[in-house]
């Protein structure tokens, strides 16, 4: 965190672009982010200035409040977060787009367009994204008038006329894959254009697991919201719950006891390790190296059984609650976790060198699916995909939140950008997380694990930023006077890693897509909301 040293220059640059800032904005209502209110006409110019400053776009979302649609965009720079806000009239809902300056924001804007009916001028792509053909034209699920149950049609029309961008030429053929896949994975459609084995273009069509998370969050109490956030993406349940709780705790100014924070970090690091282990094995399996898959599956299983016996849930769902964690860590449990750490690092000492020294494996992983550093920066990718392509950003280190502010967080950063680099980042993150776990276990604070939860009777909002195992999660929560949720938006890192996959598959062969896909392992559910 740089403490907004750049803000002064930024404001001057905005003035230079004649961006009018609205006076009534109180910049300190969304800590630790800084809020700026801009006029609708200046929405695009603000993004232009940000892009020139080198800000990373961290998401855009909207909300129907009273007679207005409020659109918010989150930008990150040097570990600080800036929230731009603008009102849009539902009668004439148009706004300049950020996509010309930030190509990674394309789908979030289309999502916003589908959900609230805000049309983005000069947006390169006007096709629907999340709102599939079952929704009639002109129905916008997140507007007030739209019921939470939706208006389901008797029979969903066939999904056959989505206008994929076509590549023409002799010998070009299309390969449709999905939405139902052969493995036990989530649904999503991939349309390849290929000549022979070479992929010319990959286009994704997602939204098949849209669950209406944003809509059904409305009217929930904080506990209910935390449970819902834990179900955005099953493999990221800890990080999403933490982000949602963090947003609410900041809004209510609740300070979470140190022991609860330490336990939260233990849960988050254990989630990271479990998923990275599974991924490393699955990547190897996709190139026919089943040995690694079996070993990693075994290690992951043991790890999750540890979760079950210590925390009572294999995936650690609902272990974080608003104001703290569900229960304290007993001495025996802490000892068991320590033993597990030692066992795992011993196993990894023998397993990882095998993978690194396997020539036939490295032959497949090296130089496959290269995401150039330039593309990673342009799309704003975080997490292991970004770290393997030179994006040296880790929320735990660069925007340190408790308890990581007291710890030394190391974050690997490589420049190769290929599948092998993404495996390497995962492997070193597992190592670092084991180190963090040891550190946390040795200095466990004492005290309660649950803060007093007081709700002031006023509408309030908060933002939570957490490093999930896939990367940065940004969550926004607004609660009404009655303490019920009015708006909840969780931006999973997959919003940016999906476009990165489309990018990195260029120049690869069709048969290498599965391993590239697995190395990115973006979440369908977290993206479709």
């Amino acid at each position, binding site marked *: 965190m740089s403490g907004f040293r750049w803000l002064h220059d930024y404001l001057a640059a905005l003035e230079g672009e004649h961006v009018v800032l609205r006076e009534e904005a109180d910049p300190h209502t969304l800590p630790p982010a800084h809020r700026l209110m801009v006029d609708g006409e200046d929405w695009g110019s603000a993004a232009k200035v940000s892009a020139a400053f080198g800000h990373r776009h961290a998401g855009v979302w909207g909300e129907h409040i009273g007679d207005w649609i409020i659109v918010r965009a989150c930008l990150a720079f040097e570990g600080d977060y800036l929230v731009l806000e603008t009102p849009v009239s539902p009668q004439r809902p148009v706004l300049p787009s950020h996509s010309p300056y930030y190509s990674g924001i394309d789908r979030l804007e289309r999502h916003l367009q589908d959900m609230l009916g805000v049309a983005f001028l000069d947006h390169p792509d006007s096709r629907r994204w999340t709102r599939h053909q079952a929704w009639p034209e002109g129905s916008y699920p997140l507007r007030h008038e739209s019921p939470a149950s939706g208006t389901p049609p008797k029979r969903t029309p066939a999904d056959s006329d989505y206008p994929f961008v076509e590549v023409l030429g002799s010998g070009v*053929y*299309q390969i449709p894959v999905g939405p139902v896949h052969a493995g036990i994975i989530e649904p999503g459609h991939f349309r390849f254009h290929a000549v022979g084995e070479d992929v010319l273009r990959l286009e994704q069509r997602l939204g098949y697991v849209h669950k209406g998370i944003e809509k059904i969050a409305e009217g929930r109490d904080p506990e209910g919201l935390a449970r819902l956030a834990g179900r955005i993406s099953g493999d990221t349940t800890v990080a999403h719950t933490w982000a949602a709780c963090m947003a609410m705790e900041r809004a209510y100014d609740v300070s979470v006891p140190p022991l609860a924070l330490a336990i939260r970090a233990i849960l988050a690091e254990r989630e990271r390790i479990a998923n990275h282990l599974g991924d490393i094995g699955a990547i190897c399996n996709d190139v026919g190296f089943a040995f690694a898959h079996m070993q990693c599956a075994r290690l992951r299983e043991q790890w999750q059984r540890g979760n079950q016996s210590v925390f009572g849930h294999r995936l650690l769902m609902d272990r974080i609650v608003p104001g703290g964690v569900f229960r304290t860590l007993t001495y025996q449990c802490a000892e068991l976790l320590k033993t597990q750490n030692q066992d795992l690092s011993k196993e990894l000492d023998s397993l990882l060198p095998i993978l690194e020294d396997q020539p036939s494996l490295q032959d497949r992983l090296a130089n496959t699916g290269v995401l150039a550093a330039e593309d990673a920066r342009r799309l704003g990718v975080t997490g292991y995909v970004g770290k393997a392509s030179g994006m040296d950003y880790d929320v735990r280190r660069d925007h340190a939140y408790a308890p990581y502010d007291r710890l030394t967080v190391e974050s690997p950063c490589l420049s190769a950008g290929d599948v092998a680099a993404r495996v390497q980042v995962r492997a070193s993150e597992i190592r670092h997380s084991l180190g963090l776990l040891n550190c946390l276990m040795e200095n466990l604070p004492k005290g309660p694990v649950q803060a007093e939860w007081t709700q002031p009777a006023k509408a309030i909002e908060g933002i939570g930023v957490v490093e999930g195992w896939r990367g940065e999660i940004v969550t926004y929560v607004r609660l009404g006077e009655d303490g019920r949720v009015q708006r909840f938006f969780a931006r999973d890192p997959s919003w940016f890693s999906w476009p990165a996959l489309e990018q990195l598959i260029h120049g690869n062969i069709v048969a290498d897509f*599965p391993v590239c896909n697995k190395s990115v392992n973006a979440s369908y559910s977290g993206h479709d909301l």
Partner: protein
Amino acid sequence: MNASLWALTLLQVLLYAALAPLLVGWVRKIKALLQNRKGASVWQPYRDLYKLFGKEARMAHTASILFRAAPYIVFVATWLAASAIPLIAIPMPTSAIADVIVIAGLLALARFFLALAGMDVGTAFGGMGASREMFVSALAEPAMLMAVFTLAMTAHSTNLASVVEYQLVNDNILRPSYMFALAGLMLVAIAETGRIPADNPATHLELTMIHEAMILEYSGRHLALMEWAAQLKLLLYGVLLANVFFPWGIGQGTGFAAASIGLVVIVTKLALLGVALAVSETVLAKMRVFRVPAFLNLALLLALLGLLSHVILEVGA
């Protein structure tokens, strides 16, 4: 005499069909053990076949008669090809009808219909698998023939029974040409039977498949026949390697005792080969599709070296 010869041949042919799933089950079992897993029983492929034969065969609306006929053609052609390779005893009336060129032809016929069936329904995966299969086999076939010709030149016959007999009767000297041919044929066998590193028989990823992609649309008895044919092909190559290069122990007469010993010996040889295959599949990852030509070029080169070393070192010696 003639009747017992035919009876023995019939027994061999039936044994081929009966043993094929066992070899696959054995390889899978060893692979599982090498991965620290228990793995399914070696009888699992039989259960799978039984299950598939009992299931309804579903057909795509666009499927033509070719799609229905292909499993039978593929299975019969593969089986016929296998029947011309001595399994437990050498004297075989079938070997007078079919020599190694016929075997290669029958395998090509099976592959031809397999590829056509893959394309018949019109799905992208079937076409992709068919094109990859043709790409691989176009390179594998010359290498295979070249390797077998090396043996044929030594024995002065393209008939496999004569080749085996020649080696048994004449001498036990180590021929360099045989070593090269063996190495070349092993690589061909791996590519042709769709094993790692050329193809992955265990994958569920449509986009990486070769053989599996072509039979994705099959179900029920059709799928069972396709699977069985693939298992037969693996056994065929296994027997080819085991009996042609290491013929010792194979029955030379028509007697029951010789045939029984021959059976025990070939099962042992195949078990050892299965272990070798499982080990190589465990330590290797699948290679990129475009590396397969280099792999098969190596096979061709080895076979060619075998042929050359035969001409240079062994002719007239």
